[in-house]
């Protein structure tokens, strides 16, 4: 049997070489894409930090804006405004979100549960500006803006996030816990409130924090509901208040470089809050899930 030298050659054929080259090329492209995404993240955070951090001062946090042409002044009213709006929105969205999740995972027949999930997903996919206009039409026309109306709009945005996060954690609660409680003679509602809910508390909390991080940066719903505000610190949710994202939006549209500096500083405050809270929540969620799954 004659050995065909070419056939058993250890050097790759041109075709093999081309296949390997394409393979390496594609892997390099995929790596490059991931690097680019991380680079953009670093670039955005970097430029916000670089331009924003220098403008931060004690006055920035404690004073309100000065009139045009003067220097100094701060954003205390926007900070307090955001705090009021987001806190109220959280108070509105959390109980309803948890109730919906409980219904979907503990009570609803499969078809209805599917439909509820679909409703939540579609609600989550609505543009936030649509929700702003809805609340404007529902609450603002005729009676004017107010902080709590902005909160209502943000609550609509938070609701599907909280409900979906809660429902995912509820699904992780081992059925042995539920069955154990039922077998001991506990009724359904006692099982849900006494066993299922406390077990999933950690996951609900992190889901809520992620929703807060999202809501804190939303601008469009506040545009129509709480934007025309006095330049003073107010804790009253019945008054329209200024908020951090809306203030950034207005300042970024201005032509005055001093306004841009304030926008960067506010952006730095907002982005720090959002990134720190969502990172912490994510880490806690991973740990919590591991614990629950054993």
């Amino acid at each position, binding site marked *: 049997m004659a050995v065909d030298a070419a056939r058993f050659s250890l050097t790759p054929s041109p075709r093999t070489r081309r296949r390997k080259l*394409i*393979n390496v090329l594609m*892997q390099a492209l*995929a790596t490059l*894409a*991931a690097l680019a*995404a991380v680079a*953009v*993240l670093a670039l*955005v955070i970097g*430029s*916000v930090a670089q331009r924003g951090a220098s403008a931060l001062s004690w006055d920035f946090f404690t004073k309100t804006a000065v009139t045009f042409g003067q220097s100094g002044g701060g954003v205390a009213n926007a900070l307090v405004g955001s705090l009021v709006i987001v806190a109220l929105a959280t108070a509105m969205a959390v109980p*309803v979100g948890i*109730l*919906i999740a409980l*219904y*979907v995972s503990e*009570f*609803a027949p499969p078809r*209805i549960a*599917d*439909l*509820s999930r*679909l*409703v*939540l*997903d*579609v*609600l989550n*996919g*609505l*543009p*936030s*500006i649509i929700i702003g*206009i*809805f609340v404007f*039409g*529902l609450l603002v*026309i005729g009676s004017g803006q107010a902080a709590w109306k902005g909160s209502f709009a943000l609550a609509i945005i938070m609701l*599907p996030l909280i409900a979906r996060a809660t429902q995912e954690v509820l699904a992780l609660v081992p059925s042995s816990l539920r069955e154990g409680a039922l077998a*001991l*003679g506990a*009724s*359904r509602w*006692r099982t849900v409130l006494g066993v299922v809910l406390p077990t999933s508390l950690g996951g609900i909390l992190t889901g809520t924090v992620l929703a807060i991080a999202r809501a804190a*940066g939303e*601008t469009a719903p506040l*545009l129509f509901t709480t934007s*025309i505000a006095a330049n003073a610190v107010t804790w009253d949710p019945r008054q329209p208040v200024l908020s951090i994202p809306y203030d*950034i*939006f207005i300042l*970024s*549209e201005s032509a005055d470089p001093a306004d*841009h500096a304030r*926008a960067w500083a506010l*952006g730095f405050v*907002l982005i720090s809050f*959002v*990134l720190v809270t969502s*990172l912490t929540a994510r880490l806690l969620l991973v740990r919590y899930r591991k614990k629950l799954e054993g």
Partner: protein
Amino acid sequence: MSARVNAITSTPALRARRRLGDRFGDVFLHGLTGAAAAAAGALLVAIAWKIFDIAHPAISKYGFAFVTRQGWDAIHSRFGALDLIWGTLLTSFLALLIATPVSIAIGLYLSELAPRGARTVIASLVELLAAIPSVVLGLWGILVLGPFVGQDLGPWLHRHLGFIPLFDGTPQNAGILVAVLVLTIMIVPITSSICRELFLGVPTELEEGALALGATRWEMVRGVILPYTRTGVGAAVILGFGRAVGEAIAVTQVIGAGYGIHWSLFATGDTLASKLAEQYQSATTKIQTASLVYLAAILLVISLLVNLLAQVIVRRFSHQRTGGS
């Protein structure tokens, strides 16, 4: 069975009361949670109804011709949505055109290539990109990205690719191109994290089978992973489109409030959502407000269709993969 347990621990009187309380508690909690779920559905209907209700004067005055008419003339109350629909579709499609291959590539990197230890870190960094508030991204877009596009990227594209209508005209700091890039940055984290999960769900034996047959990694991706996840990736892209269409704030900040229908990426423009964000407060007449909300109604219809389509695909896809449930 529960009666047995109760019998041991309680007197008949207590048992009766507790059973009544339990039954009431069960019904009450069931009803309360059900009402909350129904409220979410009602909310969705109410949103659609309210938007069409405010837009009604404009809908009855202009009819469907509004959608196909150009121009936004507040003085003569002549309004049309075609410019804005064009701007919305152009920016969203181009953003998707860039974001789709990038997202697939990132998904592949995170599911197949990245070193094990770095995987979760890089994946959460990419997802963190989605957490950046759109108003901050818009601020960065107008003050950092815009000047870069206007002075470096734009002129370069114009010089080398100026024969394509897309790169015709004079590059500026604000315009369609900046909006497309900002939208791309917003879509990529969403679609890439869905892609990653889809790719991770491909059965290992299929992947290993292809490799064992002598396929290179890329051939395995092309022959096994991508065909297997095609539907899901399609749904991810549609979801990304829905996100791009509805983004108002960041686009308003960078697109430069222009008008007209043209191909040039260097020109300024407007989208349905950005027009709303810009003009809502300055709307003086009732018909102008109604016309603006007519834009919102168009946006709502697009976003509902897009979202429902994506959800239906996702649900059918997962149903098929799990073999039905």
